[in-house]
């Protein structure tokens, strides 16, 4: 009987111990998530074959998502071998939104195009290579908003 009691007691302790550590793990997980730099549910769009010359052109038109923070950013996903200039322009009047992003060659990080837009705001994604850089074909990117 004392042996059985010991076993039950050990099991009970282990359950309590496990439960408290499980709670600790959940709390740690939550803290990691809450502490993330930006927890927005971005909308991403593949930009395939954004072929650029030294003259700006429009790739497509997009909308600011309701789950982001009102900004739009762009990154190249394959190593760009030219410096590029990417911008967002208002759909109704083509006014430049924010400043165009100048993305150095070989930079694959996100670059902000503009911020402070309301959900649904329409913009045209435009781009070119830097003056004197020639042209850049068949490179892909991601638009985040």
């Amino acid at each position, binding site marked *: 009987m004392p042996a059985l009691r010991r076993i039950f007691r*050990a099991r009970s*302790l*282990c359950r309590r*111990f*496990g439960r408290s*550590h*499980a709670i*600790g*793990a*959940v709390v*740690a*997980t939550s803290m*990691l*998530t809450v502490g*993330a*730099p*930006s*927890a*927005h549910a*971005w*909308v*991403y*769009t*593949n*930009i*395939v074959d954004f072929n650029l010359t030294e*003259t*700006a*052109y*429009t790739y*497509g*038109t*997009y*909308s600011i998502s309701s789950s982001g923070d009102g900004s739009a950013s762009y*990154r190249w*996903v394959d190593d760009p071998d030219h410096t590029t200039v990417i911008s967002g*322009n*208002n*759909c*109704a*009047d*083509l*006014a*430049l939104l924010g400043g165009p992003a100048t993305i150095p060659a070989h930079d*694959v*990080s*996100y670059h902000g195009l503009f911020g402070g837009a*309301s*959900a*649904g*705001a*329409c913009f*045209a994604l*435009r781009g*070119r290579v830097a003056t004197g850089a020639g042209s850049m074909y068949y490179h892909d990117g*991601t638009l*985040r908003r």
Partner: protein
Amino acid sequence: MTRARAQLLRRCAAGTVVLTIAGVIAALASLPSGPGVSNAAWAAATAQAPPTPALARGPQATPIGGPAEARAAAARAAQSLPLPQGGNFNGIRWEEAGGTFTDADVAFVTQYNATCQWYRALRDGREVQRAAQIVQEAPSWPAIRDTEPAAGLAAAAREVLAGGFGPAAGALVDQCQAAHEREVAWARQLGLPPSS
């Protein structure tokens, strides 16, 4: 007592480690994608995004030239697109955007701009009946219907049909108003009459 606790710790340690690792993995998976995003995560995220707008329907993406050619094409479009009284496309900033434009670019910008002019007319009580009808048609105009922003115009149109300016139509008309103020300044700078 201390020995018993040490035994207990050993027994429960494996489970605790597993739980903690699972928690950290879950936390990392929930972080927003950054520059180092994996191809799988990128594909999964983009799979949920609306498709890239196709310009195959409606106007074809044929280059027509620079800002001067785009402005001339927009002036021609003003003859065929419905606009409120006093409407025009003089304030579109082709010159500020620069570069090359296609037929599809001009068609999209002018059709979107015309939609904005009708939303402002509706808000201001000008040609209300016609404005209410045109904002319903605009999302299916040839240069707009296959693009991502068509969804926003359709949402705004539904609110108008339901009898008022809800969040989508309200936000749209605010954006249109901001664009119109820029257009007036640009047209005046070029010595052209701005739209009403």
